[in-house]
């Protein structure tokens, strides 16, 4: 694993040409998250579209990983229902916590599979997760919660020991 495997072209592309960047005219929930170790920042806004899908806006400043992650996330979750967003976030979390041993599911993660290499760099995992944490928090504040919770078992939020 070297640094080029971390900085996949997809990541660089999202970093340089972020999709969906910008704040919403009207948001039902907003969350500002910082990574206190390095000062990366991201603000995510969310509201519910007419079809019941998420409308997402974001802004931020920080490294290629955090900013590209926000862009990829906004693409993935825009227009999808809360339950689906939760499932994608769960899958992404599992990938990040897998220390490089988890095979990403491209059907669920789309461009986010490019972040597989980040899992090998603990200090960067926080960067990749920052927008996702903000999304979850913004949804909670907006009350945009999935009716049927996704199977908790499939979300690896439990604490893991040292490998």
């Amino acid at each position, binding site marked *: 694993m070297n640094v080029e495997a971390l900085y996949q072209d997809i990541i660089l592309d999202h970093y340089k040409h972020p999709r969906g960047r910008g704040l919403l005219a009207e948001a039902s929930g907003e969350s500002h998250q910082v990574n*206190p*170790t390095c000062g990366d920042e991201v603000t995510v806004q969310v509201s519910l579209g007419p079809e019941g899908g998420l409308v997402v806006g974001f802004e931020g400043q920080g490294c290629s990983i955090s900013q590209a992650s926000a862009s990829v996330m906004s693409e993935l979750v825009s227009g999808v229902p809360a339950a689906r967003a939760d499932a994608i976030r769960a899958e992404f979390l599992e990938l990040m916590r897998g220390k490089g041993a988890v095979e990403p599911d491209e059907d669920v993660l789309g461009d986010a599979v490019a972040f597989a290499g980040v899992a090998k*760099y*603990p*200090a*960067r995992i926080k960067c990749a997760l920052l927008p996702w944490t903000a999304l979850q928090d913004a949804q909670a504040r907006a009350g945009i919660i999935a009716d049927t919770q996704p199977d908790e078992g499939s979300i690896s939020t439990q*604490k893991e*020991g*040292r490998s």
Partner: protein
Amino acid sequence: MVESLDVARIRKDFPILERRVRGDHPLVYLDSAATSQKPTVVLDAERHFYETSNAGVHRGAHQLAEEATDAYEGARAEIASFVGAQPDDLVFTKNATEGLNLAAYAFSNSSALVAHAPERVDPRFVLRPGDSVVVTQMEHHANLVPWQEACAKTGATLRWIGLTDDGRLDLADLDRVIDSTTKAVAVVHQSNLLGTVNPVRLLMDRAHAVGAIGVVDACQSVPHMPVDVPSLGADLVAWSGHKMLGPTGIGVLWGSTDVLASMPPFLTGGSMIETVQMEHSTYAAPPKRFEAGTPMTAQAVGLAAAVRYLSDLGMHRVAEHEHALTGYALAALQALRGVRIIGPDTNHDRGSAVSFAVDGIHPHDVGQFLDDRGVAVRVGHHCAWPTCRRFDVPATTRLSTYVYNDESDIDQAIDGILAAQAFFGA
């Protein structure tokens, strides 16, 4: 039947026990309640950390920093599992004293903040004149003086649970001592002077019944018996690493998730913040909130090695071993004329610290005679001066054992006491 400890084999792991002292006497170390010795695996673990992965934790983006962070957080997880706790409920401190001060400062800081920043304060931590804090008469100074200071700063009143003549808590009027004015109850799990093991669960339940925060000083229990910390029923529990085969310079404060989260920070600075501006800062969630500055990284790694070593021995076996030794010591001391046990003289609900007084010989002089034969014990008030006063002694001599001691060590101590008695004609 628990398999017993192989002391001869264990002793090989502690190079210092090979020392000769005072001329050419083999060292007989009976002062583990003050500080324990360290096995080679602990020293190796620290050194290995320094020689391979030393770097700032939680801060760097380079490989060493990642490894150091893993080592530090891995140590937290191992130590947490040793006491049945969640890693995030464990705060590293420099010693138990810092942990107990952290608890007391949660009160005095909240009480000060309430005037100028009330929105930051959980009322459970506010002390006012009329409020009370309850301790016991067998506290180590570390679990007494911080509460005296908290009271001095806020106008609250310090109360305490007295002792019976056989060295137990006098619980007769517990419900009067801990009452609706009580905001904190802080008690020692096992007394370092008397050896008494206290019914902390009962005291914590009483604390919670009146809405008070319960604090336990587990300095002498966690090293010597299996302790499932969350099930003590306390809100905050502190202990030290150096008394459980770990390095100096590290201790632990466990807190329930909810209570830690509602406490203001204590030491502030790097690593415990969320955002900082010149005008104002916000703080990280526990445990980081309480770990300002560069941590005791190597010492955490060393302490993790110590709990692995203890786990390998098995804490049940450690407790059993010490229980047997304590019984042996109590019997041997009681067989001496002119020797009085200060603390419970029976072997139930008591640990391995055994204090005693020898008629006509001051503890300093007893200790000197033991030292002259290579027997290291502690004499003095053991940082529990009010407890000495309660038993009308200026000081005591104390034997305290650990995994590397056996009966022959006690025998050596007994011989020394006899020699002192012969010399002083007492």
